[in-house]
């Protein structure tokens, strides 16, 4: 009696059955929709990066950081601006957390290491954030904390309206230290060497005299060595149109005119003018002259024309006139060691215009930004991170 094969075929049937069950189980256990896990996160990630970009490009980030740095108005207003903008940029089914790292001096003042903004002030947000399963993050770096505490400014003051103008700046920047003088010997002693008394920036709003060669050389050397920046305006170049000053400001004085129009901002990508719109008009006292400067662009020493004015010497021919010139030179003096040489030149008597109420706020803002930008202190880089996730309000 032969019965071989029966047991084997039963084994085979069991094996087949088992295999089939495993395959079926694998199919059943496969994720129902694979799309969300991949695309869902990608979408979150895009929302985070795009929203942060829009926040920065719209100026909301700068405005909020400026509020934090100046603490005027209250830092809570910075939160409000950031929150309104982020809620406008992100759909309501997305929640967010924005962290802005603060530089040490602000950490001490605001008693926190970073500013954190959630969709509202509910105390439940930090707990909800800690327990998130899926969150996308995007980080950028800001240099807006260039606004400095204790910035030391050496100002040449030979008219009373310059004192008034400086007082107005001081009201807005109470922590800045102003050294005012019209004594050339003292002035030269402060700019000739690098020590604790060396200014961060030399402010020459409207110099009515011609400096001695020794002063001009000292100023040029200090600026070239990156000890301090220089901000000039009014008749400073008219009275000192020398090779030293031409090198400091990277501009040469051609002539002066009075029949000119107001100043127009032509570039707002620069730190000086980023609070303004391209084409924005800066009112100027039309009884005061404007100067025509020719930018001296050389290799490695770029000069940015941030604003222009126009006049018509032979109508209808209209000529452009550089109204705000910003020189920014970065030279590598040894491997990894850079020297920054900055100077800003206004072609206007902006002090007179501001003190007589023509474009006062705009000229003050521009002068403050020029002093900040031209100062030799390095900017502080702070991270800004936006986290985005799906979910209901906390």
């Amino acid at each position: 009696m032969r019965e071989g094969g029966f047991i084997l075929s039963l084994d085979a049937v069991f094996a087949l059955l088992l295999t089939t069950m495993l395959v079926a189980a694998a199919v059943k256990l496969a994720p129902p929709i694979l799309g969300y896990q991949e695309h869902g996160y990608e979408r979150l990630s895009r929302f985070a990066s795009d929203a942060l970009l829009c926040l920065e490009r719209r100026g909301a980030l700068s405005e909020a950081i400026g509020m934090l740095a100046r603490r005027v108005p209250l830092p809570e207003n910075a939160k409000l601006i950031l929150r309104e903008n982020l809620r406008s940029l992100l759909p309501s089914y997305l929640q967010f957390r924005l962290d802005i790292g603060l530089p040490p001096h602000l950490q001490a003042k605001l008693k926190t290491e970073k500013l954190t903004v959630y969709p509202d002030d509910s105390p439940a947000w930090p707990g909800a954030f800690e327990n998130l399963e899926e969150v996308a993050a995007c980080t950028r770096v800001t240099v807006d904390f260039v606004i400095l505490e204790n910035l030391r400014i050496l100002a040449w003051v030979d008219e009373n309206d310059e004192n008034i103008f400086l007082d107005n700046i001081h009201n807005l920047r109470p922590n800045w230290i102003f050294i005012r003088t019209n004594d050339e010997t003292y002035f030269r002693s402060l700019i000739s060497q690098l020590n604790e008394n060396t200014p961060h920036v030399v402010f020459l709003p409207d110099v009515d005299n011609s400096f001695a060669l020794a002063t001009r050389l000292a100023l040029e050397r200090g600026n070239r060595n990156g000890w301090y920046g220089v901000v000039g305006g009014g008749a400073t170049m008219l009275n000192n149109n020398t090779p030293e000053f031409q090198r400091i400001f990277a501009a040469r004085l051609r002539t002066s005119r009075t029949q000119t129009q107001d100043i127009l901002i032509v570039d707002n990508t620069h730190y000086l003018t980023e609070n303004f719109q391209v084409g924005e008009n800066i009112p100027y006292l039309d009884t005061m002259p404007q100067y025509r400067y020719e930018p001296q662009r050389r290799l490695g020493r770029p000069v940015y024309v941030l604003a222009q004015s126009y006049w018509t010497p032979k109508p209808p021919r209209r000529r452009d006139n550089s109204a705000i010139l910003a020189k920014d030179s970065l030279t590598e003096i040894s491997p990894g060691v850079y020297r920054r040489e900055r100077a800003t030149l206004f072609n206007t008597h902006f002090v007179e215009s501001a003190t007589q109420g023509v474009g006062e706020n705009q000229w003050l803002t521009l002068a403050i930004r020029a002093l900040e930008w031209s100062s030799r202190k390095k900017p502080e880089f702070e991270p800004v991170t936006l986290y985005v996730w799906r979910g209901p309000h906390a």
Partner: protein
Amino acid sequence: MWKSESRGSKGQIFTLDVFFAVGVFALALGLLGSSFGELRGRVEAYWSGYSLERTANDAADVLVYTCGTPSDWADRPESLKVPGIAENWRNLTLKCSIDLWRLARLREILRSGNWDSSPAKESISRMFGGERFWIRVGLREAVFVAGSYRESEMILWSFWPRWQPGQSQPSGFENASKVVVVRRPILLRTGRVLWENYIEFADAGTRENEFEFWLSQFEYDAFDLYIRVVSDPDPAYRVDNVSLGINEDPPEDPVADTEDGYIYNSSMGAENAFPNPFPAGHGVIHGGIENDVWLEEPFEPGSNELEYRVTGDANTWALLQLVELPACSPPSLALMDPKCVRTGFLEVVLWR
């Protein structure tokens, strides 16, 4: 059991076990086939969804991150290879900032009557994986009011291949089996300022002037033109009236000279735009000056003229702006400051 016996030997041909085995085998085979069928369906659905998601995502990237290829495609639409609509500022692409000129050009290419003959049809279709796509651009704003945030959204421009004014969605969209919507946050302006003039009265008086301009056929089709009049919120510093002549002298009488243009007066508020849905604004609810049937000589392709006369007391002021809104925009948009950068969204919708 079925047995056969012959010549003293016994054989077992088919047993119940065999039937059982065959039955189980058939069942297992059927289950396997069904499982593979289900698996195949899932894989197909996944790849179908994946490719739709991928295409929508990539198309949204191209639209908001680039100004297109070539970068001047909006001035030479026949050269279009990739239709980006981001702003280009001094050869710098401003990601996520929408350029209305490019947006308007893309809408015109897609408009019914233009799409089928457009040389850009192939490159646009390739980018969206076919003609089943829909682009929506809108404003979104959250404002902190009385202790809470009020969020609002408004779709401004919605277009797809062969879109027509008045349609709310593409034909065939309601029967879609799968829909993918990709949204991106953007910055945008509501209009373009073609011309503006600020008028200030140190003493009471009247100012009269004119502005001549050339309107191309594209601008005429792609944009609606409105005149925006802005004066001081305080009536004491608001001009008395502004008379706006459209290719005619400024009208003297708001009723008798209706066909010549529009008249703004201080009672209309600090801001107004013409034409508008009210009788003094010609009751137009759609289409701008060039579509205002009340006018004898509305703006047309070619040379046009805006003549204006402003009357005000001492210390009053007015700002006049000729604003272009993308065609078929809500007229209320003309009231918004066109220079203000606003937050919004762009959505790319794809379906099968």
